[in-house]
């Protein structure tokens, strides 16, 4: 028995590469004919079109259809998986793949609602930097552990209208004097929304006495100490916000609409290409441009995850793998298509891959990566929850 195991281990170690290939061929075979229900936020027409393109390609190449289940909030898909678990439907679930973000990932991982680890079995994972601590291995400081696969980069940026503003604020602290000089001309989404909370986190990282404390769970004392300067800053800012800080847009796209309507002069996004895309869609003035605070801005990786009870698990893996192909990522980063930055490690690309990225078109409203400054790491997920609650405690009566 022991000998048998040892032999098997030896065989496996000798034949790792072919074994992965064989396993992957088995996945491809099982996936053929499946229809993957990809649950993803449906509020962005260009992302929707890209998902449609992905589905056309996977159908053509692998016989895997993709149906985009458009969500208004990622938590809808989480709730759906939870109610399926409540009803005892542990197989044949209705959600095959989710475009997921940190807090929802944490909730699903903790509740055992995810399938995996699966990332390392994807052939195209070879193009990723998965060394310990690399951005694609942590999500809101939560170790990914192969339970979700990256597909696009997210960076927090502001947009402003150069026709109305000469010099945007250079730091988060400078928003206070700026708003004082331009009362009612800026706002942020409600912090119960992802983007509103990110705005607060961006300020927190800049203003906290010790930013490294944000990488651990937020205890009471630590939270009070780290957020004291934030609240002082916010209390000074709030009276000069749009509507006197008494009302807030529901999400980033409503805020963008306010900017397009001329009600405010600053919008915010979690995608540096979003303003350029919005201009092309006629949703922002041509004069809109991106800016980030001097010290850099929060960045993270967007992932896709597969629920534990997914009916078309193999198909979902094929789609996740296709999303990581260099040509797919180059197509995605093309501003004529979507413009979202690639998650691949340029050092791991071959010449053809590098050439595909080098050939991408430019756009005056599209910032270069080096203009965006350093990427700030997301605080631990508990900070977001606590910030949202504390903000409501202080500002909702």
């Amino acid at each position, binding site marked *: 028995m022991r000998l048998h195991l040892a032999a098997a281990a030896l065989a496996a170690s000798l034949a790792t590469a072919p074994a992965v290939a064989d396993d992957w061929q088995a996945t491809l075979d099982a996936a053929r004919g499946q229809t993957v229900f990809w649950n993803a936020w449906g509020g962005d027409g260009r992302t929707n079109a890209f998902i449609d393109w992905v589905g056309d390609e996977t159908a053509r190449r692998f016989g895997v259809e993709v149906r985009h289940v458009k969500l208004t909030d990622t938590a809808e898909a989480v*709730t759906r998986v939870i109610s399926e678990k409540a009803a005892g439907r542990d197989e044949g679930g209705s959600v095959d793949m989710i475009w997921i973000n940190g807090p929802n990932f944490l909730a699903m991982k903790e*509740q055992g609602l995810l399938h995996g680890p699966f990332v390392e079995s994807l052939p195209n994972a070879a193009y990723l930097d998965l060394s310990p601590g690399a951005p694609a291995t942590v999500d809101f400081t939560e170790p990914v552990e192969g339970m979700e696969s990256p597909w696009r980069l997210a960076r927090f940026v502001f947009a402003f209208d150069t026709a109305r503003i000469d010099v945007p604020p250079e730091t988060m602290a400078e928003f206070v004097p700026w708003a004082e000089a331009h009362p009612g001309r800026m706002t942020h989404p409600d912090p119960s929304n992802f983007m509103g909370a990110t705005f607060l986190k961006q300020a927190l990282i800049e203003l906290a006495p010790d930013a490294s404390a944000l990488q651990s769970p937020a205890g009471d004392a630590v939270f009070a100490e780290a957020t004291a300067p934030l609240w002082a800053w916010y209390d000074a800012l709030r009276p000069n916000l749009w*509507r006197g800080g008494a009302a807030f847009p529901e999400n980033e796209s409503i805020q963008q609409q306010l900017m397009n309507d001329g*009600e405010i002069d600053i919008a915010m996004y979690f995608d540096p290409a979003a303003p350029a895309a919005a201009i092309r869609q006629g*949703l922002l003035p041509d004069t809109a441009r991106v800016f980030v605070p001097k010290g850099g801005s929060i960045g993270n990786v967007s992932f896709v995850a597969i629920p534990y009870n997914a009916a078309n698990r193999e198909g979902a893996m094929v789609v996740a793998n296709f999303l990581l192909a260099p040509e797919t990522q180059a197509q995605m980063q093309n501003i004529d298509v979507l413009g979202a930055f690639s998650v691949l490690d340029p050092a791991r690309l071959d010449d053809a891959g590098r050439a595909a990225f080098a050939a991408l078109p430019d756009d005056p409203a599209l910032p270069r990566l080096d203009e965006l400054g350093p990427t700030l790491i997301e605080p631990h997920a508990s900070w977001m929850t606590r910030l949202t609650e504390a903000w409501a405690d202080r500002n909702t009566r």
Partner: protein
Amino acid sequence: MRVAPEGRGLRALVLAALAFGLIGPIAAGLWATARAGFGVMPVIGATEASLAPWSALFALPGLATSLKVTAFTGIVSTLLSLILALALTAALQPRLTGGRAARLLAPFLAIPHAALAIGLAFVLTPSGWIARLLAPILGLDRPPDIALVGDPWGIALILGLMLKEVPFLMLVSLAGLTQIPLAQHLAAGRSLGYGRAAVWLKLIVPQLWPLIRLPVMVVLAYALSTVEMGLILGPSNPPVLAVLLTRLFFAPDTALLLPASAGALLQGGLVAAAFALLWLTERALAMAGRFWLCRGGRGHGLDPILPLARGLGMIAAALGALAMLALLTWSFAWRWPWPAALPESWSLRAWTGAAPGLARALGLTLALALATTALSLALAVAWLEGEDRARSPRAPWAEALIYLPLLVPQIGFLYGLNVLFLRLGLSGGLAAVIWAQALFVFPYVMITLSDPWRALDPRLARAAASLGAGPWRRLFTVKLPVLIAPILTAAAIGVAVSVAQYLPTLFMGAGRIATLTTEAVTLSSGSDRRVTGAYATLQTALPLAAYAAAFLVPALLHRDRRALRGGGA
């Protein structure tokens, strides 16, 4: 004598269908929500019954304000809608009968709540249409920073609710009037020297009230629990209760499902309290009113109410029409920045860009609308025919039963209902969505069809019976053809209700059944007015086509039968 068992069989069948199809699911849904509200939700690891969800709920910042605004907007909008609807009915009644009224009201009934809210927000907001027209006159280079929409009092929300509810209440009032010997009472009142408004207030409204009480309660329950309108037109910090709960239900932290469920129960309590208030007001008015009636004042001072109502009604109609026109214009716009009164550039992209999805969504929406409406209509006809055969009026409990799905806030039972459907292996399919939508379509079909059905001249059926026609033949060859106009009107309303369903379609369809409404909500997340405009136009066009059919088909079928032509409802 042969008739009785048959009638009983039909009634038993209808009751069984209702018990299993309607009450069962709602009760199961409420049960799951109630358990979660008291801390029991095994799937997220909560197994101990406790009051913790309630203390978490009441610890939410701004809950008290949210409750106040919800109660204020819900009650005030219902009260104002009722007053305006009755006054308008009184003011316009002589010229507004049957089909003409329905034709005038149809667009307002057809447009979905959310679409009207988005259009109205664009008309009213400081950077909106009215402000853009005024900007050059007032010399504004930036929109004024005033909360005209999303104001802390919820005035914009009240206005939006009224634009939808006044036409609905007018429709049910006009239908109710067919039950009252209106012309005789008006003539008797006038001959005794009462003013026009006073006749209505003293003679007609007290008789009409029992006939429209339940629809008013439906309006009240809706106003207290609307998510879409609250989100678009209501205050944001804190929002109305239903929006607050939706945020909790969809928060990343799944532990918040417990206080969210407690909040859903609170929402139900709020609706129940509002019903109690309505009942108390009714009693108090009945007592005070008797005294007031006996004093015998002729009330000529009341007459200016009628032109005032007409004026207000015209303003409301103009606002509603502007809101719809705004959406239509946006759907053909490309750039339309402040302060341009008309789009800077035009484009068909909102239509063509969404075309593939649009066609599929249109097909599914149509199929769902036809299926739910046919199902609801069949059930309604069976119920009403059962009543006829038993020769018994409807018991109050039965009346309440029909309205149950409209009186209980959706958010309070949809989650639990979804779990039940999943256990039955139904969720995610068309059948589940048809079932869930029918819960809300059936009551509206019943509301619209009941009164014309009862108003049917009983001598027709008796004449047919004396000629030897059995009960089924009387139903299919006499009653249904004669009632074709109101049946089609009920069907049109059913189509409108089905098209507008958002949460039931989303929950029961596992997000896979993409209808015009779910697409419109997710695609735009409420913010690309051009896409919203395209979808909203179709969302409105579909029920409007149904209304048009409801007017045209009887006119064609009965072109040589004058009394059968006018839409009775």
